[in-house]
């Protein structure tokens, strides 16, 4: 563990971080070895595999995995690679099967990962212990309100312990708009595309970089939100007008940006369609009825360390920033709606999501442009001598449960993200990784 190098690279106390961590391929490989093999990673949504035998292709870090529902309805996640010579055992993005048969020599595996077929086994492999040669399975898998998470590390704490205080905020994205727990479903169709940037830049951006508003000047000027056709400017409807924004960073490395609205009074939204507007008013009223004052807390965005992010409402989506190499990220994105929302609402949201997010997203395109050329700008010997500035609102936060709360725009969430990034790369034990106050930051 090159602790000294890492300490030199990431100095969150002074708020300076070396550009190298966004460009060096050896650090990228260290990330794969020490971080993506241990942290809980988002791998999909239950709704993608509703039936026994269903499977869907996913990724963990740089590696392909298959999320399957076995014949007994249990979820599994496996490396998509045969134990014999490594060939892909599943060639499709999704489908339903009884068995994964390897194209090369036809070893076959059940949807529970067990090795169930080895041609000529008695003769050629008389001593084979089939149990030792099943598909490589994740160490732990958790389903949380439909979302599916997994880790390769048997010693990792349970998912909810890892999530910690960020749960409250993730819930705001996953729960129904009327305040019921859960109730969301994933729209079918996963955006997958490759952005020439280091994966940490979007992860950091979503963990609470509210300061990058100027990036979105173009959509803000023209208006693309759900009331834009009625003349509303901005990239979404202003349901947070006048709210107290909150930035919270958590042990584990997570960071969120939510907001506390001044009151439970309703702001009229979705002006382009009265039916839809009524629907959301109804949801609001139900939510207030169910949650009382708690209904005032509204979601915006957040990153669950390391590379899962969520958009809480406009749009409402889950993101995976899959690392490809130090300079490329394969972004996956799926979108949520309430399962029982009227079709008219779903249709409106679906179209808004597509014009906001993804490769054709008018808002996200400008983010990607910045991530792309910020990564490029981190390269080179002179650039490397001038660390990035992470000093925004340094020290301007208060303890909040296990985390830290800021009430003004801040890079504290980013500092927390990189503090944990460093702990992972140093190979720290889990108690340190999810400790209340990360050690190296003696404040």
């Amino acid at each position, binding site marked *: 563990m090159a602790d000294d190098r890492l300490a030199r690279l990431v100095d969150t106390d002074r708020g300076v971080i070396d550009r190298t961590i966004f460009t060096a391929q050896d650090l990228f490989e260290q990330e794969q070895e020490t971080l993506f093999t241990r942290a809980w990673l988002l791998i999909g949504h239950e709704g993608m595999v509703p039936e026994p035998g269903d499977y869907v*292709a996913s990724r963990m870090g740089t590696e392909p995995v298959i999320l399957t529902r076995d014949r007994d309805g249990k979820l599994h996640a496996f490396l998509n690679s045969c134990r014999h010579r490594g060939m892909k055992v599943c*060639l*499709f*993005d*999704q*489908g339903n099967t009884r068995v994964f048969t390897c194209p090369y020599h036809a070893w076959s595996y059940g949807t529970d990962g067990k090795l169930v077929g080895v041609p000529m086994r008695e003769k050629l492999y008389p001593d084979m212990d089939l149990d030792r040669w099943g598909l490589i399975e994740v160490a732990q898998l958790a389903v949380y309100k439909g979302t599916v998470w997994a880790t390769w590390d048997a010693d990792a704490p349970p998912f909810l312990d890892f999530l910690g205080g960020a749960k409250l905020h993730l819930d705001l994205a996953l729960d129904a708009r009327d305040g019921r727990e859960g109730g969301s479903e994933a*729209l*079918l*169709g*996963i*955006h*997958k*595309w*490759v*952005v*020439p940037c280091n994966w940490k830049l979007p992860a950091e951006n979503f963990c609470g970089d509210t300061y990058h508003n100027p*990036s979105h*000047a*173009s*959509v803000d*000027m*023209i*208006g*693309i939100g759900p009331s*834009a*056709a009625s003349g509303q400017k901005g990239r979404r409807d202003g349901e947070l007008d006048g709210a107290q924004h909150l930035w919270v960073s958590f042990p584990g490395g997570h960071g969120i940006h939510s907001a506390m609205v001044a009151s439970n009074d309703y702001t009229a939204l979705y002006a382009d369609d009265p039916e839809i507007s009524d629907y959301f008013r109804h949801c609001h009223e139900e939510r207030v009825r169910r949650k009382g004052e708690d209904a005032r807390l509204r979601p915006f965005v957040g990153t669950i360390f390391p590379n899962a992010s969520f958009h809480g409402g406009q749009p409402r989506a889950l993101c995976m920033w899959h690392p490809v190499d130090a300079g490329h990220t*394969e972004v996956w994105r*799926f*979108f949520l709606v309430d399962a029982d929302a009227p079709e008219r609402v779903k*249709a409106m949201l*679906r*179209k808004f*999501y*597509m*014009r906001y997010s*993804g*490769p*054709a997203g*008018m808002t996200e*395109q*400008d983010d*990607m*442009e*910045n991530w*792309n050329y910020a990564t490029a700008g981190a390269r080179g010997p002179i650039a490397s001598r001038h660390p990035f500035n992470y000093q925004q609102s340094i020290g301007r936060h208060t303890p909040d449960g296990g985390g830290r709360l800021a009430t003004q725009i801040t890079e504290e969430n980013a500092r927390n993200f990189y503090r944990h990034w460093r702990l992972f790369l140093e190979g720290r034990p889990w108690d340190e990784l999810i400790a209340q106050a990360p050690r190296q930051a003696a404040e």
Partner: protein
Amino acid sequence: MNLPRDEAYFRLKDEVETFLYDEAEALDERRYDDWLAMLADDLVYFMPMQRNVAQGPHAEAMEFTREQADIHWFEEDKWTLAKRVEQIQTGVHWAEVPISRVVHLVGNVRLVDAAPDAASAETVTVSCRFVVSQNRQQRENYLFVGRRTDTLRRAGNGWQVCRRKVILDQNVLLAKNLTVFF
């Protein structure tokens, strides 16, 4: 449908080709407002995603994301396309600052249908292939090759696109974004 090869057919085919080439020219010359004028107010502009699935009876249904139901690369109308143009014209749409250098080549133009007939066609369905090249900044370069099926409707002396379905034939998108019009 097999249109009879009479003079009306040839005239119509030329009209349609010329329209498609004029449209390409408008886009490549960044005359976006001219381009918008070539789109019908009720335009549907659709580009599904494609999945890797097994052959079989339901393969095609599983391969493409479903219009009006799923998430796609694009499912737009004229309003959003006009917004996209407006966005570029702000001068601060960073993904298009500076504006991409784009070339649209349209080929294999086939009249699939003309209603009621070629001589008095009010709507025409036309299929084509495209090569769209996008070049930007120093060395950003993307090539989009795919298929398109357009429905054109007569509008005054000319035509307007009232439906466009674009098959890009990619799975993981190979470009960093989709700021280009197809």
